[in-house]
C-alpha cells in the first residue's frame, strides 16, 4: 500500500507552489503563527487563571468540604457554626475533621512597611490540613502563639520574606496590626482572589481577628474512611445536617470556586473573545494569501484543466496548500507558546502550562482556519476557464 502510494505520486504541486514563493509563504506562516500564539496565550491565561483560583483548594487534605450556603467564592466566604462539622462526625464513614478559618487580613511588608491584603487560614495545628507530607511537621511550629507559615509563591509585594528567612534572619511583621513571626515557609501559590497566603493556628487567627465569633468557621474539611463512597456520604450528610451548611465533595468545592470566576466575572468571556479574535485574524490572513495565490496562478490552473486534469485535482492542490500551511504555521506557534508560557509562569507565578487538550484545540482551530480559507479560495478556481487561455 505504502509502496503503491510512493509509486503513484505526482509532482507535489501544492508544496512547490508554497515553497517557490518564499515571501508569500513567510507572510502566511507569520499570520498563522501569530493567530496561533494569540489563541495559545488567551486560552492559556484563561485556563491558568481558573486553575490559579483553586491552588489552595486543591491542596486540602479532605474528601468532603462544608461551607456556608451564603459563601460565594474564596473572596467572599461566610461563616457557619463549627457545631455542624462536629455533628458530621456522627456519620460512621467520617474519619476525621478539620475546622478552618478563612479570611483576608492586612499584611505589612517588613521592608517597605506597605500593607496589602493576604489570605490567612487558621486551623488546629494537630489536625491535618494540606496533603503535603512535610506540612504536619511544620504545623507543629504554629502551636506557639503569633507564628505563621508564609507561602513563598506569594507575590513579591509582600516583601523579601523567603530571602530573609533562608538567610536565617528572624522575620517579624504585622498582620492586621498585630505582631507575628514567620515560623516556616510553605509553597501554595497565589490565586485570583489572593495575592499571597499565610497559614496560622486558630488561636492566633482569632487573636488577629477578634471580631470573628469563636464558634464560627468558614470551611470544614471532612476526611472519610477508606473505601467509602464520597457522593453517597455527601448525600446522607446533606440530609442529616440542617440547611445552614452545604456539603460539597472536594471536586465540587474546586468547581464551585472555578465556576464563580467563570460565570460571575467577565474573565472567561474576555479571554475567549481574545482567542476568537486571533482565530478571525488568522482566517483573514490565510484567506487573503490563498485567494491571491489562486488568482495569480489562474492561467496556470486553466492550463492544467486544458491538459486534462480534473477540477477535483486542482481543488485538492488548494486544499493541500491549506493543510501544509496549517502544519507549518502550527509548529512555530506551539514552540513560541511554550516559551511564552514559561515566561508567564516565572513573571506572574500563574500555573499556565501547555496541556495536550489545549495543544489539540489550537491545532484544530488552525486546521479549520486554513481549510475554511482554502475552501473559500477554491471558489476562485471555478473562474479558471481553459477556453480563455488561447
Amino acid at each position: 500500500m505504502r509502496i503503491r502510494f510512493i509509486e503513484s505520486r505526482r509532482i507535489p504541486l501544492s508544496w512547490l507552489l508554497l515553497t517557490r514563493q518564499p515571501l508569500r509563504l513567510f507572510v502566511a506562516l507569520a499570520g498563522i503563527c501569530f493567530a496561533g500564539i494569540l489563541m495559545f496565550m488567551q486560552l492559556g491565561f484563561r485556563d491558568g487563571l481558573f486553575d490559579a483560583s483553586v491552588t489552595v483548594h486543591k491542596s486540602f487534605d479532605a474528601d468532603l468540604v462544608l461551607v456556608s450556603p451564603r459563601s460565594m467564592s474564596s473572596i467572599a466566604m461566610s461563616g457557619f457554626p463549627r457545631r455542624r462539622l462536629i455533628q458530621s462526625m456522627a456519620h460512621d464513614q467520617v474519619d476525621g475533621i478539620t475546622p478552618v478559618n478563612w479570611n483576608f487580613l492586612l499584611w505589612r511588608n517588613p521592608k517597605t512597611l506597605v500593607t496589602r491584603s493576604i489570605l490567612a487560614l487558621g486551623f488546629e495545628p494537630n489536625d491535618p490540613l494540606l496533603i503535603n507530607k512535610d506540612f504536619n511537621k511544620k504545623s507543629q511550629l504554629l502551636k506557639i502563639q503569633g507564628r505563621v507559615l508564609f507561602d513563598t509563591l506569594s507575590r513579591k509585594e509582600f516583601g523579601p520574606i523567603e530571602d530573609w528567612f533562608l538567610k536565617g534572619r528572624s522575620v517579624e511583621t504585622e498582620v492586621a496590626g498585630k505582631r507575628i513571626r514567620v515560623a516556616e515557609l510553605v509553597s501554595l501559590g497565589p490565586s485570583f482572589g489572593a495575592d499571597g497566603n499565610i497559614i496560622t493556628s486558630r488561636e492566633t487567627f482569632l487573636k488577629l481577628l477578634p471580631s470573628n465569633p469563636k464558634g464560627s468557621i468558614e470551611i470544614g474539611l471532612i476526611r472519610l474512611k477508606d473505601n467509602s463512597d464520597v457522593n453517597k456520604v455527601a448525600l446522607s450528610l446533606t440530609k442529616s445536617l440542617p440547611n445552614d451548611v452545604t456539603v460539597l465533595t472536594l471536586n465540587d468545592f474546586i468547581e464551585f470556586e472555578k465556576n464563580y470566576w467563570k460565570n460571575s466575572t467577565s474573565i472567561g468571556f474576555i479571554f475567549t473573545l481574545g482567542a476568537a479574535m486571533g482565530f478571525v485574524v488568522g482566517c483573514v490572513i490565510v484567506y487573503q494569501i490563498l485567494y491571491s495565490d489562486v488568482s495569480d496562478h489562474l492561467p496556470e490552473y486553466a492550463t492544467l484543466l486544458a491538459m486534462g486534469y480534473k477540477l477535483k485535482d486542482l481543488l485538492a492542490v488548494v486544499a493541500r496548500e491549506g493543510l501544509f500551511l496549517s502544519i507549518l504555521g502550527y509548529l512555530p506557534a506551539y514552540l513560541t507558546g511554550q516559551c511564552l508560557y514559561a515566561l508567564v509562569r516565572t513573571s506572574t507565578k500563574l500555573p499556565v502550562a501547555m496541556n495536550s487538550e489545549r495543544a489539540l484545540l489550537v491545532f484544530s482551530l488552525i486546521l479549520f482556519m486554513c481549510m475554511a480559507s482554502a475552501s473559500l479560495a477554491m471558489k476562485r478556481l471555478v473562474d479558471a476557464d481553459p477556453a480563455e487561455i488561447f
Partner: protein
Amino acid sequence: MTEDSAVEINGLSHWFGIGHMRRKVLHSISMNIQPGEVVLLTGPSGCGKTTLLTLIGALRHIQEGDLVVLGNQLRNSSRKTRQRLRKQIGMIFQGHNLLRCLTAEQNVQMGADLLNGYSYRSRRDQAREWLREVGLSDQLHKLPNDLSGGQKQRVAIARALAARPKLLLADEPTAALDSVTGREIVSLLKRLALEQSCAVLMVTHDQRILDVADRLLKMEDGSIVPHD
C-alpha cells in the same frame, strides 16, 4: 470513417454573446483531419480560428453541428467525457503557459503524470527523455523564468507530447519567437508528432512555416475557404 479520422467536423456553427449582441463566429464548418496529418489553419485575426481550436480541444460547449474528436462525439457530451478526451489532446499555446513554480523537468512531468500505470520514477525518466528530444537535456532544473522564449516553447512541446496525445492543437506557437527559432520549433513539432503518429492542427499567421503542412486550410469570417 469516424473511427479513422482524428477529427471529423460536420456543419459546426458557433455564436458568442447573448440577445441582440449575439454574433455568429463559425458558419457551418465541415472538415476532417486524418491521423498523422499536419494541418495548418491560417486566416486574419478574429476569423474564428481560435474558437474552432477550443471547440476541438473540448474546452467549449458545442452549440450546433457535429464534432467527433478521436471517436468521441462532443455535442451534448458530459463533463467527464470532455475531461477524459482532453487527456488525449496535447495543447501548445501562444504564451507557452508553463507553471512558473515548476522546473522544466517538473513541467514536462505534469504532462507525463496524466498517464496511468507508470511509477513516479518512470514518469520522471520519460520527462527527461522528452526534454532530451527537444534539446534541453542540460536545462532540466531551470525555472521557466530562466529560460529563453524558444526554450520555453520547447518545454511546452515536450509537456504536450509527454501525455502521448493522439491529436496536437497548437495556437500560434511561433508568435513570440524570431524566425529562425520559430522555424526550428515547428520542424521539431512536426518530426516528433510524426514519430508518435499524432495528428497536428496548428493555427498560425506565420507565412514562413507554411511549407511544413501536409494540408493548408484558410479561414475567413467563420468559414473555411478554398486556399489560393
